[in-house]
């Protein structure tokens, strides 16, 4: 199973956190909150569609609000595969970082130079 890119990882996590309310606007907002970058709608659509194509996400058309001018939301949900890959990513990451703390990283930089 291939690895996730950082963007994909963040988006999957955002969808998971938003539970039943994961659609374009909320996902972009969530990403903006959790990262230091400002995310616009245009930047989330392509990875969303890609992840859906890969089978990590599923989507359906949901309710609409007055604010949206009567247009329905496209709500995203994590699939089983999506959940699996998130778990896998998490364990992998932990094992990569397991014996390294920030202070030991800095020390290593000093001795190398």
């Amino acid at each position, binding site marked *: 199973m291939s690895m996730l890119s950082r963007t994909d990882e963040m988006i999957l996590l955002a969808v998971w956190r938003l539970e039943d309310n994961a659609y*374009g606007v909320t996902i972009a907002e969530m990403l903006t909150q959790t990262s230091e970058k400002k995310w616009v*709608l245009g930047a989330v659509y392509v990875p969303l569609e890609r992840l859906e194509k890969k089978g990590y996400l599923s989507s359906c058309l949901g309710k609409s609000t007055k*604010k949206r001018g009567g247009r329905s939301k496209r709500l995203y949900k994590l699939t089983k595969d999506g959940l699996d890959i998130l778990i896998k990513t998490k364990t992998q990451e932990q094992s990569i970082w397991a014996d390294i703390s920030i202070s030991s990283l800095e020390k290593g930089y000093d001795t190398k130079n």
Partner: protein
Amino acid sequence: MTQKTKEPQPSWLCKWLVKRIFRDEGEAKLGDFMEIYSTFTEEKGRFQAKVQFWGYLIRSIPDYLKDKSYIGGTMFKNYIKNALRNIKRHRGYSFINIFGTAVGIACSIIVLLYVFDELSYDKYHKNADRIYRVRVRYTLDGEISTDTTYSPELLASTLQNEFPEIEAAARFTNYGFPVFRYRDKVFSEEKVFRADNSIFDIFSFEFISGDPEKALIDPHSIVLTQSSAKKYFGKENPIGKVINADKRRDLTVTAVIKDIPRKSHFHFDFLIFLPKADPQANWLNLPNRTYVLLKKNATMQDLAGKLELTVSKYLAPFIEKSDNMPWDQWTASGNKAEYLPQALTRIHLHSNIGGEFESNGNITSIYFISLIGMALLIIACINYINLETARASKRFREIGMRKTLGAKPSQIAFCVLTESMLMSFFSFTFALVLVKTLLPVFNNLFGKSLVLSLSDQVALLPVIFASMFFIGLVTGLYPSIALMKVKTSRVLKGFKSSGKNRSYLRNVLVVFQFAASIFIIIATWIVLSQIKYSLNMKLGFNKDQLMVIHKVDDIAQSRKTFKQNLLTLPGVLEVTNSSTVPGKGISKSYHRLYGGDINSNLLLSQIYADYDLLNTYQINLLEGRDFSKDFGREMDAVILNQTAVKVWSLDDPVGKHITPIGSGLDRKLKVIGVVEDFHFNSAHESVQPLKIGLFSENGYGRYLTVRVNPQNIQNTIKKMEKQWQVFAGKQAFEYSFVDTQFEALYNSEKELGRLFSVFAILAVFIACLGLLGLATFSISQRTKEIGIRKILGASVPGLSVLLLKELLRWVLIAACIAWPLAYLIMKKWLSGFAYRTSMTMWTFLGSAVVVLIIAVITASYQTIKAATANPVDSLRYE
């Protein structure tokens, strides 16, 4: 916060953009954007929300496209890579293509610059679009007798006082050739104008010092241009300094203005006060030009109407008096007097009437040159299309391969278009470099000062980019369509294009190229031969070894002694002082037969001279006698030319009398002789009726014509200069030769001739480049045929003829197209000359032969190579 009213919506354009760009399914994305918009509106209010939302939308697009178009980008990179490879692989053809197209583009850029330059004359005035000049035109008996820029003295003040539509009107005219002195500086000046002060309300002259309100109010005021101020005063402050004119008047400098820009239909160095018009002035006299500034809401038609009123109100009484005829009757008998408005910005290219300040440009030449520039560009583009379609057959395999690997037809087309765009880009870059390097040469050749500076001429950039794109598209379109249609299966099976259709189009294009080349050669030939004809025309006097000394008025007091001294020099044969010389203007006035009625009115050119005019110029006397000291100073005697005698149909002219109109009708001038017609003007004008009169005791002209001995001319000139310095002191000795002066009359034709020669060479050159490439391809496609023919016993000459035969056919068809076109257009051009060369058949045949020979030479290398090749090489694989 909830809103009861309808939810605010982003504009339809936003919606459209979202739909288009984001490939929205079920409108969920549009919904997202509208939600964002609503949030903005709640937070910031409507207007700010709009702005912010647009910003948001625009920021969204690149992020989206970057991800989405990743695949498109790779393909595009691949296209570029392929195009570059293709260009590299066929280095020779690519070079021919790029070079040929670049030359064509460079030419059209230069033509564009030239045309822009010519079109931008007189635009430097702030109100240029509201300024008009009054043109005076009289028609007598249905024939235009006067058509001039000169107008009555009272016209300007009358227009200004009587018509509210006119913001300002001023008299503005040139003024003799005064000698100016300031301390030890003495110059005879030529560009001195006089004007009303209101001229500064009309024209936008830039004042460096002085007040435009009062610059020409005082009768002794003079306005200098920057360079003339420098000439007289150096670094001193010119304001308030006094310049002496002709040792008669003192003029005080009141203002200094910037030099008149090059692109102006008049140029002066000095501007002098013009005395108020005499309220009694005769409206039939035309002493100055009148310029008018209209109010913003007035139109040219308004001005035309006012001018018509002025004619019937003021001019009519004077005509009635002078012709003894009521106005109605005068106009009814085929006569017309008109004052017509001329728009300032049209003067340079459209006006070519009597009394122009300078010789103007010519709109026909502009059309001509633009046409040829276009033709060159088209020829270059055709070359590209030709070579590309010819080469296309070689690319069938590549295209077939692409198609089998899943390329869509649109992708194939895009691939070919990318290549032509790239070629167009290279050509343009090359062309711009060419223009940059060639402009100085061009300017030198044509006395222009065109510049190409993309940073200054920002307006040119979009034009250049647009045409770059356009040329890329046009040249790439046909080949891309042709390749798009290729059938994969047939190509990969080894099919070779028979290319009947394509070669048909190719032939049409080649024929067009040849036709354009032939046309340009004919045009050049005729322009050049007309110039030669004009210069060798029988002039009626001997123009060789005739020298003119200018500005004789500088030594007015001692001119007679100077003349006597010159005659003592060994190299000097004859000397005469005259009011005009060939190539300079000639004054005209109305005369009629003594005792005759209005029907015998005739506008006579007039030359005044001393006793030696006919001898010096060697003008033939046909009847009667010349002026002679034996008869004393005959102020009432004239010599006419043949044309005058013919127009008046005088059977026995000598002894008849004529009378000048204007000074009453009682003055009698006796005709004492008749001379053969002679040309003092260019071949554009036919010889006008003319009279020669004698200077009065104190009269003198500005020019001294000297017939010199052809031997040792330089020495003679040196001696003459020494004599001149005796009387004129520091003033420069200015002289010219009549034959060179005559040549100068044809400057604009020579310019056209040179331009045509350059264009003709380029046209043929570009066409040859195309032909070279084409011949190579058409022969490479026939290698097998040639091989088989050789095996069956064809000879090398026979084969060469076979291959070149096609060329002959093309040239013949091209000639048939070019000949009638060239004949019609050149006939129109020649009709501008009163004396013109005839168009001979040889010109037409010759041009076709020239093109054929050049074409054969171009193609023969490839042809002979193919014909002499060993057939084994071409047939080895069969």
